[in-house]
């Protein structure tokens, strides 16, 4: 075949997802405002979507290629494009039908640099979409996470989920409760007693302690060398948990919190993107835990207000 200028090249990416709802859940977790511009980066490893707020809050959604039923990557380098997050999620949601698994194919770029989507599992009903993209601005800060001091300061908080109609996670609940005191929340981590404390002072005071050894079903791992204390704006902490999908609660997931140099807070959630009929899925083992390949990683980075570390 002769290669003329008119002949179409293979698109950078053609991928197929067997459950749209999982992707909707993962991306919805980083929606905290009505209008958010996201940057999408494609690579041979998967898709990353990044959103940011005023240089103080950044969220990333990692969708590894193993999540996709099909992932054909043909680009050189890592193409990046900007897209409206709300529009992308609302559009994906239109492909989803309750009680049915819906497969979609995503392709980039289209003839006009658009993102192309279409349903692939239907019998004479076809849903399609084209979303306009733009050249992204450079992300103002791409945080390389560094541990404070020489030793990583990490702790894992396993959040408690109540079974039943009302779903609540301890972290989400703590942050929800902290809305009442005020706009600046102090997070204190100390080794003795091993405890993570959330403190709000404003219209009244509220202190919530998660103590290792005491709340063993809430805190499943803990590590801390010296006391650290930082303040964060409430609205940014709120953004971290406000749109946690219900699957996170049903699956009894833990959210990992880390504080690094200068008080940078990192929170990582795990969102299952498996199909609704996960019970029959070959990847699910007898304990009911999902294999990592069916998980999307969501990371939030929040800059602290004042470095109070002593």
């Amino acid at each position, binding site marked *: 075949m002769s290669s003329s200028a008119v002949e179409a090249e293979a698109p950078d990416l053609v991928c197929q997802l067997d459950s749209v709802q999982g992707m909707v859940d993962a991306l919805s977790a980083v929606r905290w405002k009505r209008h958010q511009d996201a940057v999408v980066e494609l690579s041979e490893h998967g898709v990353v979507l990044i959103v940011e707020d005023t240089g103080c809050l950044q969220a990333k959604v990692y969708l590894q290629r193993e999540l996709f039923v099909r992932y054909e990557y043909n680009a050189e380098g890592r193409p990046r494009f900007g897209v409206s997050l709300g529009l992308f999620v609302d*559009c994906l949601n*239109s492909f989803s039908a309750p009680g049915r698994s819906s497969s979609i194919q995503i392709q980039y770029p289209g003839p006009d640099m658009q993102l192309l989507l279409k349903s692939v599992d239907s019998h004479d009903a076809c849903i*399609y979409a084209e979303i306009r993209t733009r050249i992204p601005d450079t992300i103002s800060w791409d945080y390389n996470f560094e541990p404070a001091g020489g030793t990583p300061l990490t702790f894992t908080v396993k959040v408690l989920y109540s079974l039943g109609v009302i779903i609540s996670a301890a972290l989400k609940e703590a942050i929800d409760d902290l809305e009442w005191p005020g706009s600046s929340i102090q997070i204190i981590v100390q080794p003795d007693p091993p405890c993570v404390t959330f403190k709000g002072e404003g219209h009244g005071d509220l202190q919530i302690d998660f103590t290792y050894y005491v709340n063993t079903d809430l805190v499943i791992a803990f590590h801390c060398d010296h006391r650290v204390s930082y303040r964060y704006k409430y609205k940014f902490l709120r953004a971290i948990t406000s749109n946690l999908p219900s699957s996170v609660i049903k699956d009894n997931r833990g959210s990992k919190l880390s504080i690094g140099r200068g008080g940078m807070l990192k929170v990582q959630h795990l969102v299952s993107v498996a199909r609704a009929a996960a019970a029959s899925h070959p990847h699910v083992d007898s304990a009911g835990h999902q294999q990592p390949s069916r998980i999307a990683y969501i990371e939030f980075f929040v800059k602290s207000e004042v470095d109070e570390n002593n």
Partner: protein
Amino acid sequence: MCNILYCCDKFGTLLRWDLQESTTTRRGFTLDSYHSTTTKFGAIFYFARENWKADMKFKAFLTEHGVSLLERRFLPALDKMGKICHLFLTRDHAIFLHNLLNGDGVQCIAQFRKQALFDDYRISSQNEDRIAFAIDVSLLLRAVRSSVSICTEFGNGPTANRLQIKLVKKLPLNCTQPMPFLTFETKGYKSAVVQDVPISKPLSRAEVLELQTALDLAQDLPQTLVQVPDLNQLQNFVDRMKHVGDLLNVSVSKYGDLHVQISTTLITLGAEFRKLLVIGEQAESPSDDRNLSAQTRSERAISRGDAQRVQVSVKHFSRSLQCHLAKPDCTFYGIASQGSCLTVIFQFFIPGTHQTDKSISLHCRLPVLDPGSN
């Protein structure tokens, strides 16, 4: 003292008023208000000619099936179409009409042959036994619902707990003028309940004519109708896609394709349903169309004259789908001639069969926002 007065109203009609009989006149007018003046001829009474005539009557019994149809299916659906509708009663039909006299919203027509809802149906008026008035659908639904809950007692005989509905004029508290109501009366074994649903003043002869004309126009069927295979699927899709934009392009082709699409500067999102059942004018889809994109296929069909496309409001489209609450057996979409509106027709089968129940009809007409392309 004289008991008989001869009066002349503003329109020059000579009337004989018998004081002892109080308010009835020879011509059957009910006097609600009047003015009087004293002249050398004695008192002369002037009164306004009323639309309400004492011989405007409506009375019927709702059958059990009729109550069930209204309470469980049709009134909940009509409640979604709009707060206020017209109820148009004729010798043979009871028709609920939304937005027929004002231009903007979704028009909805629910027509019942009297036997579908009523027993012992009696109607009379000076306008060929037609009566029409406006009513709040939610109040009507509430009245029917509470009547149903009362009708649990078993009395003697077949008429023991029947639900009677009639047109009355009553004087409510804090009012100087009697007001019209549609009254529901339930007589149980031990209790009787009367519920009055307020209605508007009945429409004048001219207004009824306007309504009838609009109704006749609304019965015009599109030439091609396609059947929706799965109403739930369509409703689910439209409920989600309406977050993406406000305007919906709908195209219907003679090949049996229904294509709905939202298109804004940032996004195009659409769904195409192919090989649907067609009623009316149909055509074979050209074989080379098979592998085209939905958009191209629609464009080509339109340019061949085999399809029409119109633009409607997503909100209107979504609202008309609320008619699913009436539990129709089939749903059809079609575009009226010249692209004047988008019509959706809901069909009901006789229970236990696949035959259309011709005593019930429900359809909506959506206003078109853009002159459609032919």
